[in-house]
């Protein structure tokens, strides 16, 4: 089905009496064009706002000082990695994770190796031992978002998540393990009820470097990949 030129639809939204009869007739029978007319009307309704108010003049210098002074971790690898020729196939945001982690790499590596004696962080309850743990924080601040731990008992290995203040953005909360190489990630399940969850994972994953716990908000859009909206993260150490 052919549609009406959007400019005609804009004209109709602005002044219905000024639109040619065939345009009006088409819109009456075409939901898509009618939708666009409604959208244009909505935009028109949002016009009329007063002029934007610039912040006080001194703020610019403050922002630049504070931003550039506190700039360490991301600038190294990020500066090298960016640009159109960046790693093919690696989503930008994930590459960003890699950049942010580059400095951390090595610190905790091998800590969970199969041959290591697990370090008890909490007193063992029954036969299970907390072998690694992390605080979860928001990504753009240090705001606390709960905690996660890796628990070993007999032959099973479990990631326990006890999150908090995940916000009320619509969607389900999915838990991921991101590899410290910043290139790989895997979903380990959903926070089905509340902010607590336990997820059995193969211990091999941890040994391979999947030690960053990430919680995302997933809209119900049929897309099984990470939405890109991370609300909490922490590295198991």
């Amino acid at each position: 089905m052919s549609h009406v030129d959007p400019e005609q639809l804009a004209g109709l939204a602005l002044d219905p009496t000024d639109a040619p009869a065939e345009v009006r007739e088409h819109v009456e029978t075409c939901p898509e064009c009618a939708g666009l007319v409604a959208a244009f009307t909505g935009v028109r309704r949002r016009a009329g706002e007063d002029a934007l108010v610039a912040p006080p003049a001194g703020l610019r210098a403050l922002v630049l000082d504070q931003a550039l002074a506190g700039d360490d971790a991301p600038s190294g690898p990020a500066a090298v990695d960016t640009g159109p020729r960046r790693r093919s196939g690696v989503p930008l945001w994930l590459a960003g994770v890699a950049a942010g982690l580059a400095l951390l790499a090595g610190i905790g590596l091998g800590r969970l190796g199969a041959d290591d004696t697990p370090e008890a962080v909490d007193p063992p309850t029954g036969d299970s031992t907390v072998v690694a743990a992390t605080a979860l924080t928001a990504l753009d601040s240090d705001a606390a978002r709960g905690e996660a731990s890796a628990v070993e008992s007999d032959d099973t290995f479990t990631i326990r998540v006890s999150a908090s203040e995940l916000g009320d953005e619509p969607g389900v909360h999915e838990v991921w393990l991101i590899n410290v190489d910043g290139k790989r990630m895997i979903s380990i399940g959903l926070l089905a009820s509340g902010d607590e969850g336990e997820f059995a994972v193969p211990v091999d994953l941890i040994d391979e470097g999947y030690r960053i716990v990430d919680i995302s908000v997933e809209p119900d859009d049929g897309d099984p990949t990470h939405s890109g909206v991370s609300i909490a993260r922490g590295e198991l150490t």
Partner: protein
Amino acid sequence: MTIIPLPARAARLYGGPVVTEATAFQDEQDDSVHTLATRLVAGEETALEEVFDRWSPLVHTYALRALRDAHEAEEVTQQVFVAAWRSRHTLTPSPAALPAWLIGIARHKVADARAARAREAGRLAAVVSLPGVTDHALQSADEEIAERLVVRQAVEELPDPRRTIMFLAFWEGHSHAEIAEKVGLPLGTVKSHVRRGLMKLHQQLEGVRHESR
């Protein structure tokens, strides 16, 4: 919380069999935002300056309207741009990415500022104000403010004479005939400017909506 934009979902493309000049609306402005975003991600300090100069009024006005406190609005504005710089590697450049991303960050900073207020006001006040209901109402009010401000900025950024014509039509409520007389252009040209201007505003707003989802 950080918004990590994915590659842009395609906004509605104007086009189809009956449209011949569809690409005329993908103007140079979009390219400049994309380029600026790329430079910011690459860590260019001058890009941060340009981003601040171009969008700090939008962010500041948003914070001012949402918080109704000049001091807090300044603080939030500062936080937004510092946070934007620090998490710049999470930005995926696209035409609408920057304003959408900045507004996304601003929403969270505004929420943090409100939470801090609520903590100060104490538990009693929080109970009385029924946080659940209020949060929802606040959120949709914030969204409406953000969209109206995005429209305002989009009009400001139109090239003249379209910018002037849009202000005369939408802000001052002049008829197309009155505008034609005022600016000395044929009526048909004025109509065309208003229609295309409206389409451009729609495109900007849709871009921001998609990106901030």
